[in-house]
């Protein structure tokens, strides 16, 4: 973009005095400032997305490796020794490395991919564009947020290469494995690096969250009242609130853990013997760590889910050509989920010996979450009911999201009951439940978002055919991988075990495990297809046409600006908003079936 357009863009002919004191300091931007240390929220969002994709591939590859071990415990694979070196001598994975891979797979997918990669990408990209702001409230903090995330990633990646291996006590890093350096190989320097990485990540996520909240509350364009916000923005707002209030508690847990590791304290440690030697620590409580961890850990699930829900709402309404059903009920359910998210953490701890009465309270609160979740599902289904559905790639993934959310959500009702949880705790039933309901389904929300907003990000479409192939393999594959795990879990097969073949009761699942592993490998390669499609489409994709392209006939503000508007988002004044975000109905003016948010109300027209 030339400097000339920049100047006219921010001239004083703008009729609304809103946001016009924005000045461009980057007229002559070097590559470095524009694409590396950028303060443009659109560039930062792409940085989050691409870094998230790197971690998704790394974390996915780890799962392929340990699925090889689980599916084929008797065999050896050259590919393992190629990647893992001495950790897989002769192609047979070392048990320590198996635990390390399981731990890092969980950590990077939960935090780096589905938190930073999902809400980092789309909160950054969509908040200013959809509320009508030139950028975030503080672009500088926004840039810092990405670079703290990047540093967290570097530290985590480095931990894979230390001689005692990465942290290996599970992604929840319960003490004593995480608190005593001598407890296992991964409890040494690997665990220290994990803690450093997570501390950096928490800072990144707080900086991002603060910015998102302030931007949404303070920087909306004229006419964009809270009740006219698209549901994506409501979802991002409550996601940020959850993060800002729960991540600090994880930090307090981590600080006490660091003191236990290096300060000689025993907050979490008591009466531990290692190799026959009694450790001096007495009186600490490992359960205390679990309380602090899950006070973040449970809201974290909704930090992952809410953005996917928001984007699915937007994409379903747009592609069903119908207003979202129950807008207000949707907002209230997001609020309800946010409040309840803080009150259910102990359902992860039913078997820690808590009082049955306390357990009962947490059962009740946990099952209450079914209400807002069911309201949302009902509204999504009614939204597409008798709609004029366009099966775009984004729409398919949004539909897949709803399907997976229902399937995974139903098993949550089983696990939320403490009586059933005593049997199901730490079995493959849990693995199946959370992978479907928050892993895969959040991934589907993210894919839906990428396919849907790719034209806004790069001014080009992703290849549709590859998108369909990607969808069907992933959708069918997800069920093939995780559905059978429910049966294994009901039979009592425990998670995190290295080899089941020597158990009489679990060796019957040998063939099932093989099938799951093969499906996991197929699905992994289908994701590479998506990555290929993404990067090739950036330069080779079909171009979006029009001065202000709106390829999906959507109503929201991000489609009222040029394909690549540069830093500042609108070349002229920021549009004013006159109506709600889901005005899908007959438009008498141009004969289309939607009216954009910046179109003034017509004479005699009543607002929704």
């Amino acid at each position, binding site marked *: 973009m030339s400097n000339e357009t920049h100047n006219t863009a921010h001239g004083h002919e703008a009729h609304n005095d809103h946001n016009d004191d924005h000045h461009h300091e980057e007229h002559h931007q070097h590559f470095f400032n524009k694409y590396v240390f950028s303060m443009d929220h659109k560039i930062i969002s792409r940085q989050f997305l691409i870094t998230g994709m790197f971690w998704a591939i790394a974390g996915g590859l780890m799962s392929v490796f340990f699925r090889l071990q689980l599916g084929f415990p008797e065999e050896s694979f050259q590919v393992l020794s190629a990647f893992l070196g001495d950790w897989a001598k002769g192609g047979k994975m070392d048990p320590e490395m198996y635990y390390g891979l399981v731990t890092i797979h969980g950590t990077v997918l939960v935090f780096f991919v589905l938190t930073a990669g999902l809400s980092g990408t789309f909160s950054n990209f969509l908040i200013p564009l959809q509320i009508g702001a030139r950028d975030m*409230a503080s672009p500088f903090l926004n840039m810092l947020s990405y670079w703290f995330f990047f540093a967290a990633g570097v530290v985590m990646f480095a931990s894979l290469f230390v001689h005692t291996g990465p942290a290996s006590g599970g992604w929840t890093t319960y003490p004593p494995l995480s608190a005593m350096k001598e407890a296992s190989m991964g409890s040494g320097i690997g665990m220290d690096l994990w803690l450093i990485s997570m501390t950096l990540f928490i800072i990144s996520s707080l900086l991002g969250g603060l910015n998102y909240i*302030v931007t949404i509350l*303070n920087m909306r364009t004229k006419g964009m009242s809270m009740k006219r916000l698209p549901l994506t923005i409501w979802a991002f707002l409550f996601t940020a609130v959850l993060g*800002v209030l729960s991540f600090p508690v994880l930090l*307090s847990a981590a600080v006490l853990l660091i*003191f236990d590791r290096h300060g000689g*304290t025993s907050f979490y440690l008591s009466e531990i013997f290692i190799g026959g030697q009694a450790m001096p620590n007495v*009186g600490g*409580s490992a359960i205390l760590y679990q309380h602090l961890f899950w006070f973040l850990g449970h809201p974290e699930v909704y930090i992952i889910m809410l953005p996917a829900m928001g984007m699915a709402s937007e994409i379903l309404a747009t592609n069903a050509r119908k207003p979202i059903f129950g807008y207000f009920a949707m907002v209230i359910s997001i609020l309800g989920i946010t409040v309840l998210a803080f009150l259910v953490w102990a359902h992860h701890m039913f078997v820690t010996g808590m009082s049955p009465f306390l357990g009962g309270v947490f059962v009740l609160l946990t099952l209450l979450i079914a209400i807002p979740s069911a309201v949302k599902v009902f509204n999504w289904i009614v939204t597409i009911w008798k709609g004029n559905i366009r099966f775009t790639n984004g729409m398919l993934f949004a539909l897949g999201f709803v399907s997976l959310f229902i399937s995974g959500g139903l098993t949550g009702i089983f696990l939320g009951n403490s009586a059933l949880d005593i049997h199901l705790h730490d079995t493959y039933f849990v693995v199946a439940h959370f992978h479907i309901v928050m892993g895969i389904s959040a991934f589907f929300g993210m894919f839906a978002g990428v396919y849907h907003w790719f034209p806004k990000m790069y001014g080009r479409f992703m290849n549709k055919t590859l998108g369909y192939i990607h969808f069907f393999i992933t959708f069918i594959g997800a069920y093939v991988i995780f559905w059978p795990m429910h049966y294994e879990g009901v039979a009592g097969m425990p998670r995190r075990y290295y080899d089941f073949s020597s158990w009489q009761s679990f060796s019957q699942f040998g063939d099932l495990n093989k099938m799951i592993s093969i499906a996991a490998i197929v699905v992994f390669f289908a994701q590479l297809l998506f990555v290929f499609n993404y990067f090739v489409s950036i330069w080779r994709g079909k171009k979006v046409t029009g001065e202000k392209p709106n390829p999906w006939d959507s109503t929201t503000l991000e489609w009222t600006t040029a394909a690549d508007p540069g830093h500042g988002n609108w070349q002229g004044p920021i549009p004013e908003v006159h109506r709600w975000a889901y005005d899908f109905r007959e438009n008498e003016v141009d004969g289309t079936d939607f009216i954009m948010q910046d179109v003034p109300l017509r004479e005699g027209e009543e607002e929704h």
Partner: protein
Amino acid sequence: MSTLIATDNSNKLNSHKLLMYIAIGSMTMMFAGWISAYMVRQGQGRWEHIHLPSAFYISTAVILVSSLTIHLAARAHKNKKFGSYKLFLLVSMILGVLFLAFQYSGFLEMYNEMGIKLNGNNAAGEFTYVIPFVHGLHALGGVIALIVVAVSNSIKTKRNKYSSTGIQIAATYWHFVDALWLFIFLFLLYNQQA
């Protein structure tokens, strides 16, 4: 601060101030984590009560006074009385450093005179080290923030620009650090007798 893309709506709260309020909520949650850890751990027994070092009483008085001086500094800046602004800001910084010094001497008192070592069998003592320590990090951040505000305000004054937002935000943070310490102090004090 120049990176802020500000909205000029007078009916809305300044974005940086709002940012600070939400950040305070976030920090409150972190300390709530430690305080509830204290209570949970205490409830599990095997708990030796300890007394607070006398230096903590002095540091509490110091930080309370500093809150008053920072308030006066912010008010003086708002009323464009730059002489008394500079004086009160300087006094606040000195009191902030004094607070940290007394906290440190409190730790030394606990370690040397009261014999509370970090050897893994005195949870009350461990919490009494850790919670004031992490609070001290926040107070250190506050002192640094005051220095940053002082420097940036003096540059702005030289360029004939005037804004009291910076000092107001720093004052808000400092009041938070003060109130937080008062809470921690009273909490620990209450629990030493219980």
